[in-house]
């Protein structure tokens, strides 16, 4: 097990390198002129500015050379100092975020993590719970009803559902608002008397004993988390249902009943630990996968997290930001998958990781 983890950790840098090279290769699709123009305001009034930027950042260099510079940094012709270089811990300056990429990640990651938690945990609990109910009542009324609901849920795309929610609850009813907090709450949060612990408003507000802020944060989270989780809970339900049905038809269920266990114990002790094995692993992968969904969801709800930032940077051709965020997400994704594998080895005694 230990050796397995080490080996997986050793692969990590390889994958990261491959990912970053891939993105860099895509750079060749943009001309240096296009890339430089992002950094110049009012291009028509400052001729030559673009050329100097191309010069300054070496945008005319061959792509492999640029990649190398991006890795280890580049000596500035004027000051003679080495700038950038992600191997030196420098992800670069984000034009879109008007801060270093690290600062942007530090500011926006808690928002996204908060959204993912609020979307993910109810999604898993509801999806799994309903899936178990469906399987235990196989082909009876609850099962039929849930099947219809999950199929309908499954067939509506995220953005359609999100926009419908927005139109109905926000524009029509005015119940929930976009963004992360209302203005008054934002002022409180940014004031000196309010301490920041995690950057997640729902957590910090409780630690600061500010229930009003908590309520405000939750009301902003409801729509995006429901939208984000929507597809997934329907999938979770179907997965749990089929996995539980499979387990319930296994021979060892008969053994458990033949031992005189009550139906409740048969389900709790003998069916769930087996039926939930694939659910746990896929649920965890899905939680990580939520991070993909945030790009659309955060954009729809104007929610200032990593996803909406990613969308903004990509739309304004802010290569440095896109690279930094992608690399960071790849890291999260890969380590998340490693955790899932280890988890799998723990919950299923038949699996030996080596």
């Amino acid at each position, binding site marked *: 097990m230990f050796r397995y983890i080490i080996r997986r950790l050793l692969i990590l840098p390889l994958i990261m390198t491959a990912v970053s090279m891939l993105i860099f290769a895509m750079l060749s699709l943009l001309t240096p002129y296009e890339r430089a123009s992002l950094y110049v305001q009012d291009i028509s009034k400052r001729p030559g500015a673009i050329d100097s930027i191309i010069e300054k950042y070496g945008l005319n260099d061959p792509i492999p050379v640029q990649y190398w510079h991006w890795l280890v940094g580049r000596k500035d012709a004027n000051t003679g100092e080495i700038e950038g270089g992600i191997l030196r811990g420098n992800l670069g300056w984000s034009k879109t975020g008007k801060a270093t990429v690290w600062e942007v990640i530090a500011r926006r990651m808690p928002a996204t993590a908060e959204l993912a938690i609020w979307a993910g945990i109810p999604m898993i609990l509801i999806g799994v719970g309903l899936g178990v109910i469906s399987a235990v009542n196989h082909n009876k009324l609850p099962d039929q009803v849930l099947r219809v609901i999950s199929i309908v849920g499954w067939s509506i795309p995220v953005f359609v559902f999100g926009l419908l929610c927005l139109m109905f609850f926000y524009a029509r009813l005015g119940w929930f608002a976009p963004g992360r907090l209302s203005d008054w709450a934002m002022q409180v949060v940014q004031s000196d008397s309010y301490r920041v612990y995690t950057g997640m408003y729902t957590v910090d507000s409780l630690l600061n004993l500010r229930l009003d802020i908590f309520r405000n944060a939750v009301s902003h989270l409801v729509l995006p988390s429901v939208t984000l989780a929507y597809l997934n809970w329907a999938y979770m339900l179907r997965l749990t249902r089929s996995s539980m049905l499979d387990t319930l038809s296994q*021979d060892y269920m*008969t*053994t458990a009943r033949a031992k*005189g*266990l009550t139906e409740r114990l048969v389900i709790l002790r*003998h069916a769930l630990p087996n039926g939930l094995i694939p659910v746990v692993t896929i649920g965890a992968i899905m939680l990580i996968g939520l991070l993909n969904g945030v790009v659309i969801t955060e954009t729809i709800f104007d929610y200032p997290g990593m996803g909406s930032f990613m969308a903004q940077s990509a739309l304004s051709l802010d290569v440095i930001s896109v690279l930094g965020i992608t690399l960071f997400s790849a890291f999260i994704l890969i380590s998340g998958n490693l955790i899932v594998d280890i988890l799998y080895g723990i919950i299923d005694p*038949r699996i030996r990781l080596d």
Partner: protein
Amino acid sequence: MQDLLDILNLKTHFQTQEGTIHAVNGVSLSLSDGETLGIVGESGCGKSVTMMSLLRLIPMPPGRIVAGSAHFFGRDLLQVSDTEIRTIRGSQIGMIFQDPMTFFNPVIPIGKQVAEPLEVHRNFTRAQALERAAEMLEMVGIPRARDRLSDYPHQFSGGMRQRAMIAMALICNPKLLIADEPTTALDVTIQAQIIELVLRLREELGMSIIWITHDLGVVAGLAQRIAVMYAGYIIEEALVDEFYANPQHPYAIGLLGSLPRLDANGHKRLVSIDGLPPVLTSEPNSCPFAPRCWLAMERCQRENPQLRYINDKHRVACWVDIDSGKER
């Protein structure tokens, strides 16, 4: 001897797409205290369904016990409440199954699974139950059982798993052990060991046994009485010696193998049964074995024979007298 179990006219059906499958068609059997009964028959003849019906372990739907009674210690297992049948399962009637791999829960340690009936029926604590499980596992011949309580089923060999299954079925000291082809999935030497083990345990614990098998050879050394099933019917039943010395039903003779027999014309011939047993979708009005029977007569085609005594230790359901080849 007092009857421990008395099954009368048990009928179990399954509702399927193709229609109603008549899996068990009026089985009557009795078992006295301390006795071992062997039930023999081809695959699909209803042996398992009969036993599962007793403990009401048939999946319902699609299954349904349509008729019959099964008195065990004076109580009708088919009529008692759900709670009551649960207190009998695993406590007074233990059951072991064909494939000890699939019938053990793969993600629960063996020790916990073997100990579980004690927690459910005898209010043992987990620790007491595990202690007793270790003793029981030693008793069925698993060395250093205490160290192996936390092993998972896949860490046991096939033979050891079946031993553990036996320990699990007997841990509450039941009056009756139902063994549903417990050696079919094992290789021959292990089979012999398991049978020897059951013989020893029967000696020590004194339970009655119903032993289901395909194999007439296996059951000869175990059972006092043998019942042969075909298409959901008991078609022959006799004490062991009588059965092997004087089998009556053509199907039983076929099962017993290539024994030389007289056919209807008085010629000696080797018997083997071709074809497959039928799956009944309605009550037959002919002998269900007639299509495969080399002795079938006109009467066999229009009337299903009842199980009848031919002497005080032998019952058979056949129109033909095997020794003369004529109608009885």
